[in-house]
């Protein structure tokens, strides 16, 4: 059964974004002279697609490469290798500021609503800036568009003249979203958009993002380390570990039957929402700490911590491979829904 050809694919029929074998190696420096002595493999061969109107969730622990991927997609960071196609166009090496399509159709909202807004610009100026630069809007046309955008994210006209310091974290994140929406984007990269917000405010922003997606047909790459939040937002979820995607599946499949040992361990570490049913005592306990991307282990990057590892795991790198029904992709020689004997 294990080797049966997959009958379904996890990929959308029409990909708006296609990422293939994407890599980013940073120079590793050491010693007094800070000579380059190797590479930090922040992203090491990542493939995924995002369909029109779809939300792909990207989860993984801090340092696994999520933000590096998002910065390469929006053209703020140049890849070491691989390719990124957006709406059929190869944007792998396009600089953001040199390409009108990229500037308009691909936007990003950052985690920190405190540092991502210019403190010396009013809210009006912040939201108007892309409209002035890329659409040459001015006067009443500009004013009307900005006010419409502010209303869309739940801000009022009187907010327009104020500065970021006069707003709460949740309101600042709304401003960041209004700015991202200004040029009618098709894909928005949301890199931990609610992680810096109070829990009481997170739900407001998540609802807003869902409503905007419904109304405007947006696609999202939704990055978070909070699995419950990703489950709520994304229809398909990719799990990263140490610069690679180790599993991709639709939400229901991933949460009900995680196939990669790391996914299983990650899910078992989510605290309970019910004090009558505490779960952490029964979690899968991983050995040791996550290795550094500057010195990834040979073979499967997870093998030093994996409860399922076999001798060949230390030698052979498992590729992200389609596996059975329901459709999913797993980078593991011995995925959990398939017993090792059957291989």
């Amino acid at each position, binding site marked *: 059964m294990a080797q049966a050809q997959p009958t379904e694919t996890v990929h959308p029929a029409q990909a708006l974004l296609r990422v293939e074998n994407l890599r980013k190696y940073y120079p590793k420096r050491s010693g007094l002279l800070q000579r380059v002595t190797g590479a930090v493999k922040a992203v090491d061969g990542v493939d995924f697609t995002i369909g029109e109107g779809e939300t792909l969730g990207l989860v993984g*622990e801090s340092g696994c490469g999520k933000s590096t991927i998002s910065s390469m997609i929006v053209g703020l960071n140049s890849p070491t290798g691989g390719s990124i196609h957006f709406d059929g166009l190869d944007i792998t090496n396009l600089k953001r500021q040199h390409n009108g399509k990229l500037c308009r159709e691909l936007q990003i909202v950052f985690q920190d609503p405190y540092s991502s807004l210019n403190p010396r610009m009013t809210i009006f100026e912040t939201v108007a800036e892309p409209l002035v630069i890329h659409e040459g809007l001015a006067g009443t046309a500009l004013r009307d568009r900005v006010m419409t955008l502010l209303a869309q994210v739940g801000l009022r006209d009187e907010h327009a003249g104020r500065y970021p310091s006069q707003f709460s974290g949740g309101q600042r994140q709304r401003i960041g979203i209004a700015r991202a929406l200004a040029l009618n984007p098709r894909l928005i990269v949301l890199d931990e958009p609610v992680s810096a917000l*109070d*829990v009481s405010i*997170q*739900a407001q922003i998540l609802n807003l993002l*869902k409503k905007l997606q419904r109304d405007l047909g947006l696609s999202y790459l939704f990055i978070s380390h909070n699995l*419950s939040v990703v489950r*709520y937002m994304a229809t398909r979820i990719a799990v990263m570990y140490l610069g690679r995607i180790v599993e991709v599946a639709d939400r229901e499949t991933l949460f009900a039957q995680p196939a990669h040992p790391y996914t299983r361990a990650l899910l078992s570490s989510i605290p309970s929402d019910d004090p009558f049913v505490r779960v*952490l005592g029964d979690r899968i306990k991983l050995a040791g700490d996550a290795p550094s991307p500057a010195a990834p282990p040979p073979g499967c990057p997870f093998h030093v911590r994996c409860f399922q590892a076999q001798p060949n795991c230390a030698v052979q790198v498992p590729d992200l491979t389609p596996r059975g029904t329901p459709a999913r992709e797993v980078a593991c020689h011995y995925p959990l829904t398939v017993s090792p004997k059957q291989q």
Partner: protein
Amino acid sequence: MSTNNASGTPADGMVLSVRNLSIDLVAKNNRKSIVSDINFDVGKGETVCIVGESGSGKSVTALSLMSLTMPPLAIGGGEIYLNGQNLASLSRLERERQLGHQIAMVFQDPMTALNPVMRIGEQITESLARHQPELSRQQQWQRAEDLLQLVGVPSPRERLSVYPHEMSGGMRQRILIAIALANNPQLIIADEPTTALDVTVQAQVLEVMQEACRHAGAAILLITHDMGVVAECADRVFVMYAGRIVEQAPVTELFKRPRHPYTRALLDSIPDLHSPPDEDLSTVTGDPPDIFNLPSGCAFRTRCGFSNGRSLCSQERPHLRAIDRHHASACHFAEEMAGVDRFGEQD
């Protein structure tokens, strides 16, 4: 055990009792309270969680318990009893000695709490030497190794000679817990100890902290904004809003039958593994309160979905009061919430 005792005397057998505590922001010619009417007890070996949104006063309350309140903040009034002894009645030196012995603190960011240029072993033995001068040097190092073992640090002997930056965040947090436990305190105050950590590491650190405290018989006062951490760890919970405790209850009671509209709204707004993805999340409407510009009456009034504009809510500030033996709420209409049961029928 009584949940709320504002009578000005400590309850019997409590490690920590706080009565009518307030903390002020002191400016040149005025004082404003940012935390008020704090009353609670922590029993031996209990895990008590304080939850609340950013700015609600969790950290300043915790720091004041350790006499670490710094200008422009100052304790405005009230008493803190450690094992029944009023801290204000002690000399400064004796107070510091008592606090150092009985209470230890663990902060969110272990890097700022550890000395970056000192090896782990030296940091632990230094603390031991200060509080337990009777230990020989060899006993100190043995105890340091045992402590690392207790908090699940692998190869503890070797780890004694590394520097903080050579360790991961989760490992550093365990070192802080080891240092906190070094002098056998009766209470550990942990302010967001796992907020900066990933879920797998968070689970490890919470387990290590609870196991080690159970082993040492220490109580934990755990500050967090993560309701999952509360559900997993707490025996009892205090919910803070705008500088006051608005609800106090055993954890199962609080989750099953919240008796304050803020607690209820907070619990309902958090996406969990059962939230239907096709439905909107319920939200706490409005923005977090501005502590210097609170609404009259109940501070939660402008965001409350339960008040229905009733005049009592704007006219009178609700005080924390017992609803039943173990449950206290600061809502005028707490009794009306009795029928609400978040988990449905499952007694």
